[in-house]
C-alpha cells in the first residue's frame, strides 16, 4: 500500500496553513512528518484523517483517491484526552464501535491490546484513576484496536517512562512489520531516526525537505569536520581554523566549502596533535534545525 499526499492546500480564513504539501508513505515502513509548532503538521494529519476537506490537492491510496468508507485509520492525537470519568472498557468500546467494529470483535480486540500493553488490570477502572503514562497507553488502544491500515501517531513517546517507551517501540515495530502504514510526528529526533525510513519536514505550510533519511544525510553538504584532540584550545585560537566546541568534547570546524576538506585536514594534522579527524555526519536534529528553523 502506498499513501500519497499530492499538493494539498488549506486556508483557514485569510491564513494559508498548507501551501501545496506532498509526500508519500508506504506500508511496512514508518514515515516521519516533522516540523515546528504551527508548521501545519496537525492540519495535514486532520486532512488525511478526513476531519476537514482540503481546498486543493488529493490523497491517494495505491494510486486511487482514498475511500474513507473502506480504509480504516488509527490516530493518536498529540493532545491526549478521553473521558476522564468513564470506565475504560466502556470508552474503548465506544471508540472501536465508532470506528466501525462490531461489539463482539471490539471486545476481543480491546482485550488483546490491553493485555499487550499490560493494562488488563485497569480494564474496569475509571480513566482518571490512572497515571498519565497509563492513560496514554489506553489512548493508544483507541488508535490500534480497530486494526487500521494507516496509523498516525502524533508524539507517541512524550510522557512515557523508558519501560513503556520500550513497550511502545516494540508495538510500533510490530505494526510496521505487519504491513501497516505508520505516520509519525514527533520532535524527538532520536525516535524518528530509529523508526522512520522516510521523512518530510514542514515549514510554514510547505515541505522543505522530503526523502529517505539515509540519502538525506548522505547528500547533506559535508562541509564540517569533527576533531578530537588534546590541543583543542590552540586550534580554536588559530585564525585560519576556528571552530566550536561540542558537548561530547569534539571540536566542530566549519569549512568554507566541501572541497576545502583535504587542505584543512592536512593543516590540522601537520600543525596539531590530533587524535581523530573525520567529516561530520549531520544528525537528524541538525538537519531539522537547519530546515525547520528557517523563517519564511
Amino acid at each position, binding site marked *: 500500500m502506498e499513501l500519497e499526499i499530492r499538493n494539498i492546500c488549506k486556508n483557514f480564513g485569510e491564513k494559508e496553513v498548507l501551501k501545496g504539501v506532498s509526500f508519500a508513505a508506504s506500508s511496512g515502513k514508518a514515515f516521519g512528518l516533522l516540523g515546528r509548532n504551527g508548521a501545519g503538521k496537525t492540519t495535514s494529519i486532520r486532512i488525511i484523517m478526513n*476531519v476537514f476537506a482540503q481546498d486543493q490537492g488529493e490523497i491517494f491510496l495505491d494510486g486511487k483517491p482514498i475511500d474513507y468508507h473502506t480504509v480504516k485509520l488509527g490516530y493518536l492525537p498529540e493532545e491526549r484526552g478521553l473521558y476522564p470519568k468513564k470506565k475504560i472498557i466502556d470508552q474503548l468500546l465506544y471508540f472501536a464501535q465508532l470506528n466501525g467494529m462490531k461489539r463482539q470483535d471490539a471486545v476481543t480486540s480491546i482485550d488483546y491490546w490491553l493485555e499487550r500493553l499490560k493494562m488488563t488490570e485497569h480494564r474496569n477502572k475509571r480513566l482518571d484513576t490512572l497515571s498519565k503514562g497509563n492513560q496514554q497507553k489506553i489512548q493508544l488502544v483507541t488508535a490500534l484496536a480497530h486494526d487500521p491500515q494507516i496509523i498516525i501517531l502524533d508524539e507517541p513517546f512524550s510522557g512515557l517512562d523508558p519501560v513503556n517507551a520500550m513497550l511502545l517501540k516494540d508495538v510500533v515495530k510490530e505494526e510496521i512489520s505487519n504491513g501497516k502504514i505508520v505516520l509519525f510526528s514527533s520532535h524527538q529526533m532520536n525516535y524518528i531516526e530509529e523508526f522512520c525510513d522516510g521523512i518530510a519536514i514542514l515549514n510554514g505550510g510547505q515541505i522543505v525537505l522530503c526523502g529517505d533519511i539515509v540519502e538525506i544525510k548522505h547528500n547533506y553538504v559535508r562541509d564540517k569536520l569533527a576533531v578530537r584532540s588534546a590541543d583543542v584550545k590552540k586550534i580554536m585560537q588559530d585564525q585560519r581554523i576556528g571552530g566550536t566546541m561540542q558537548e561530547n568534547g569534539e571540536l566542530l570546524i566549519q569549512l568554507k566549502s566541501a572541497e576545502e576538506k583535504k587542505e584543512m585536514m592536512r593543516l590540522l594534522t601537520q600543525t596539531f596533535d590530533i587524535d581523530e579527524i573525520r567529516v561530520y555526519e549531520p544528525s537528524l536534529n541538525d538537519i531539522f534545525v537547519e530546515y525547520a528553523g528557517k523563517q519564511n
Partner: protein
Amino acid sequence: MKQFGTIFQFEMKSYIKNKIFTGVTAALVLVIAVVMFFPRITEAFGGGKEEDASGGAAASAEADNQAVILLSLSGIENADLVGQCFKQTFPEYTVTVSDSSLDEIKDKIAAGEVECAFVMDSLTSYTYYVNNLSMYDHKTAAADEALSSLYRMDAMMKNGISAEAAGEILSAEITHETENMGKDQAKNFAYTYIMIFALYMVILLYGQMVASNVATEKSSRAMELLITSAKPVSMMFGKVMASCLAGFIQLILVFGSAALFYQLNKSYWSGIGMIASVFNMPIHLLVYMLVFFVLGFLIYAFLFGAIGSTVSKLEDINTAVMPLTMLFVAGFMIVMFSMTSGEVDNIGMLICSYVPFTSPMAMFTRIAMGTVPLYEVIISIAILVASVVAVGYAAAKIYRMGVLLYGTPPKLKAILKAVRG
C-alpha cells in the same frame, strides 16, 4: 447512521448511569408519592386523633385553648343582639363581652390573652384591634357582613316589617348557571401551569447539559479523537436526541408516577377539583404537549450544543449560554404573566406563539387556556418544524467549526460565516 446509533447509545447510557440523573428522578418520584399519598396518610392519623378527642376532658381542654375575641359594646343599643351575632359569626372563638377601658383591652391583646377586640361605636361602626394583622385575617369582613345584616334587620323591623319577613328578604338567594362556550380557565390553569413549568425546567436543564457535555469533550480533548472517528453531524444529533429521550423518559416517569399514585388515592382527592382537573387533562392536549415538547426541546438543544462547541473551557459555558437562557426565560415570563392575568390571547402571546423560540410554550398555553383556530396551530407548528430543521443544520455547521477551535471563542462573524459556508 450507524455512528449516530453508537453515539446515541453511548450518550443514553451515560444518562442512565449518571447517579445525579437517576437520583433526581427517583427523588422526584418519591416527592410526588408523598404528596399524592398525603391525604390518605393524614386521614389515617387524623382519624385516630378524633377518637382521642371524644373523651370529655380533652374536649373541655380544647375549649379552654380557644382564642378569645373581646367585644366592647358600651353605649350602643341592641348590645345583646350584637353579642349573639358575634358568637354565631365566630363559632370557633370564645366571644367575651367586656367593659374594660380601651387601654386595658390593648394591654390584653399585647399580652396575648386575647387575640383581638372589636370596639363598637355604633351598630355600623367599630374599631378592630389586633396585635399582628395576618394576611389571612378575614374577621373584619365576617363582622362587617354580620353587622350589616343585623343593621338591615333592625332597620326593617323599625319600619314595621315582621322579623320573619325581614329574615326572608335578607336571606333571599340568587341562583345562577354558567354556560361556558370555550375553555374554563380556572380548571385549565393548573395543568397548563404544570406543563409549561415542566417544559421550562426540562429544556433549561437538558439544554445546559448538552452544552456542558460538548464543552467537557472539548476541554478533556476527547474531541481530538472523536472528531476523527465520527462525523460532527452524527455527534451533535446523537447527543441531542439522547438528551431529548432522557428528558422525555424523566418526564414520563415523573408524570406517570403522579398519575399512578393519583389513581391509587383518587377517593382521597375527590374534594379538590384542581387536582382532579390536572389528571383529567384532555388527551388532545397531551398530544400537543408532546409535539411542543419535542420540537421546543430540539430547537434549544441544538443551539445549546452549538454554543457548547464554541467554548474551550467548562468555566466559560455559563456566560456563553447566557443570551440563549435569557431569551428562553423572557419567553417563559411572557407566557406566565399572560397566564396569571388570564389574557392568554394578548398581542404579546399572539406574537410569541409564532416565534419558534417561544411558540412551544405560548401556543400550548393558548390552546390549553383559550380558543385557537386549528389553522393557527398548524401554522405555528409548521414554523417550528422548519426552524428546528434550519437550526439543526446551522448548529451542525457551527459545531463542525467550533469543536476544533481552542483559545478565544469565535466571533459572531466567524460563526455566521461557518453557517453560510
